[in-house]
């Protein structure tokens, strides 16, 4: 067999091995031995992020420890034409950090130092690999904290938060990552040092900081971030309200906002979700309710008292069947315990679940819930729902068994249906988890070919060679043609008069 011609697969594999050795040799010049890994058993832990359904081993993983090393890795890869995928904690939920088969994964895990907490300017300067919660912990002695609090905050990094424009349960009142970051320091795809934003409230020229935040690592590599810190509210109290009808609960959300109240948090769980979390945390949730709202107020004692009174009145007049107001911090945490454990609770009642992340206008909350109930019948799968109701961001959890190929297939169709229905209702395919690789097809439904092409133009402006995290976020024209669905954007349906559900 020695002289037999190579099969195509063997040929590719050999080319891949050659490429790998070439990259390793080039990077060894700049990185210490322990900062470069390429054997399959070592690179396997990097094959996916929090979206485990998509896996790909990278050719090489680089773990630089200094900015000079980051620049050197980028310059080297740029010279060799090697794709680079930056990676923080790998907690992302859309495959944004999924490696490139012929690329280098740039792990920024070692950039984990808090460089400065300045209580006077109320800012923190942190390296990109610092965990979200660690910033608030470091600021706590000054009665300050970093406001955006994604559920993964114990593990996710600020660099990843910048890449995804992460939100959390308090962003209606306190904003997203975008609203809480002053400056991003990092490198272009070519390895040139860049700063976006600054220590002042604005910077000259175009607001590139706004473009870089939420760009899923495709425009630049972040190494350091200046964030705003805000004073900790003196007090927070939470109302738990039950509703016997999802439409009444949805209307109550709109009524709270219409009354001029911006709650610190406004969350909703449907009946199946409530049952799942009650079984998990035993917090005493109302199992008969069709939907439960958690409505939080924070501020000074006087402010909270005033707001809780106004919110209670609105919820009552919206038809709440039961209302409880937390009287202690323990009780408040108990109210939240179920909401915060929605994902693990779902993991207990099903072998697998798929979490969606679309956003709709608030007024359509009940409509989407009812539409999802119909989809449960259509796809013969169960779905539990938790919503950041205050900002219309949905997290339906579709329950399925990944070992059953048909269930997996139906689950994917279910998910795509939810996303496309959300877009048709005037919403978006991703509120906070990002597009990554997961929602590329759904982007074809939200954006026209010309819009996607303009976004490729943005990519080219930052990264002309297209080497930073290529293939994510923006679908190609060909991909959309193959997916074969048209743009269904809210208000632009071809036949808006037709009933859809």
């Amino acid at each position, binding site marked *: 067999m020695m002289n037999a011609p190579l099969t195509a697969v063997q040929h590719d594999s050999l080319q891949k091995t050659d490429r790998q050795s070439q990259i390793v040799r080039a990077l060894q010049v700049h990185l210490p031995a322990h900062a470069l890994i390429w054997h399959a058993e070592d690179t396997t832990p990097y094959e996916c992020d929090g979206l485990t359904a998509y896996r790909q081993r990278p050719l090489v993983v680089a773990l630089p420890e200094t900015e000079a090393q980051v620049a050197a890795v980028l310059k080297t890869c740029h010279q060799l034409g090697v794709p680079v995928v930056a990676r923080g904690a790998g907690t992302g939920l859309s495959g944004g950090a999924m490696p490139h088969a012929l690329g280098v994964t740039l792990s920024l895990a070692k950039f984990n130092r808090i460089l400065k907490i300045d209580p006077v*300017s109320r800012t923190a300067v942190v390296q990109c690999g610092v965990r979200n919660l660690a910033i608030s912990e470091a600021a706590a002695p000054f009665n300050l904290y970093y406001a955006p609090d994604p559920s993964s905050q114990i593990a996710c990094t600020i660099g990843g938060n910048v890449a995804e424009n992460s939100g959390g349960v308090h962003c209606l009142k306190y904003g997203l990552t975008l609203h809480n970051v002053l400056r991003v320091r990092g490198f272009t795809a070519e390895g040139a040092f860049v700063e976006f934003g600054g220590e002042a409230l604005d910077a000259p020229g175009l607001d590139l900081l*706004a473009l870089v935040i939420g760009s899923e690592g495709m425009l630049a590599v972040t190494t350091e971030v200046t964030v705003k810190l805000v004073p900790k509210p003196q007090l927070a109290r939470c109302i738990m309200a039950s509703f016997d009808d999802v439409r009444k609960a949805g209307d109550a959300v709109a009524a709270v906002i219409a009354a001029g109240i911006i709650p610190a948090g406004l969350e909703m769980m449907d009946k199946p979700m409530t049952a799942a979390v009650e079984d998990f945390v035993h917090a005493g949730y109302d199992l008969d309710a069709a939907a439960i709202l958690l409505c939080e107020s924070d501020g000074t004692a*006087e402010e909270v008292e005033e707001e809780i009174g106004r919110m209670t009145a609105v919820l009552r007049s919206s038809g709440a069947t039961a209302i409880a107001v937390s009287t202690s911090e323990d009780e408040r945490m108990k109210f939240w315990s179920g909401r915060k454990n929605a994902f693990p609770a779902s993991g207990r009642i099903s072998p697998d679940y798929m979490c969606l992340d679309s956003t709709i206008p608030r007024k359509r909350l009940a409509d989407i819930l009812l539409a999802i109930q119909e989809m449960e019948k259509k796809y013969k799968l169960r779905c539990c729902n938790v919503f950041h109701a205050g900002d219309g961001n949905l997290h339906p959890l579709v329950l399925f068994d990944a070992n059953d190929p048909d269930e997996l297939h139906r689950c994917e169709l279910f998910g795509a249906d939810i996303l496309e229905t959300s877009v048709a209702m005037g919403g978006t395919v991703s509120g906070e988890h990002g597009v990554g690789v997961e929602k590329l097809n759904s982007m074809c439904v939200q954006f026209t070919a010309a819009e996607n092409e303009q976004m490729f133009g943005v990519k080219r402006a930052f990264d002309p060679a297209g080497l930073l995290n290529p293939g994510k976020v923006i679908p190609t024209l060909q991909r959309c043609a193959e997916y074969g669905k048209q743009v269904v954007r809210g208000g632009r349906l071809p036949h808006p008069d037709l009933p859809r559900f």
Partner: protein
Amino acid sequence: MDPALSQIAERIRAAAADATPLRIRGGGTKDFHGETPQGDILSTAALTGITSYEPSELVVTVRGGTPLAELEAVLAEKGQCLPFEPPHFGPGTTVGGMVAAGLSGPARASVGAVRDYVLGATLVNGRGEVLSFGGQVMKNVAGYDVSRVLAGSLGTLGVIAEVSLKVLPVAPAEATLEFACSQADALRLLNEWGGRPLPLNASCWFEHGGAGILQLRLRGAVAAVEAACAHLGGERRDNAVAAADWQSLRDQRLPWFAADDTDTDTDAALWRLSVPQTAPVLAIDGNAPLVEWHGGQRWYKAAPDQAARIRDIAHAAGGHATLFRKPASQAGGDVPRFDALSAPVARIHRALMHEFDPHRIFNRGRLFADE
């Protein structure tokens, strides 16, 4: 597509075909802002009207040529507002101009800037394509945030045909407190207060008759504002009088901005310094500044030939300087309005503008003088 938008797209395609420079114009109230406008006027005046507004969604979608005053009146009817208080430098200020200029008023340091409230936009790019980005919802990470980069783009990326903005309820209570203090004390106090859970909203320090005055506006829940007033002291101003003054500050109609008798120098330009709020009193000669944004925005009157020194001081403090208004004498025509960019950031700017406007027809040289 509606006729007004089609006409604009058609005009752009024609201009692109023969590389005719276009100068995008709303109300023309900020013609002074940025480098000298060039090209044939492309008016957005026909793009008017509020496309959708549902107060319970906290979102309004409005066409670019709509007068800002008209939008604000509609919001006020429902007890809502644009919290960043965009300036009106004339009666014709449009919503598109507000976004393109990216300027925010007195509340900016506490509540955020224009860009923080942009949720989505429809623009016509330099190929005459009508494109929409972002949306009408608070949380949206589908694709790059192209709509937000339009804020402050000075029309260099395209015509802002429509924009969706987050709006907020008008605060239930408001109060203005006045303190007699030096600039240094004002900066110290503002940064100290900023670290406490107080309903700060806007501040303004200036000198009057040689004495320093700090005015502080609080906005929030009734209980919070009353508690803060009791706690902070100072002299409480009449709300109606104070409101008029805050509006004059927003629109630069306060006496400080006018050329008065102490300001005999007709060569004095208006400089805007954007610096960290904690930057100390800056060593710039001449009249005392007017300080806003809790120390983050400082206005100075100085001749354009002071540019190098002023820019050095701003950089050293961690910020940047803009020659906001030219002097009455029009001196210093060759002084760049904005600070220079670093080489990699300048390269990205050029490339980005090329991607949106490949034939270089929009507001050529407005952000940075033509090369």
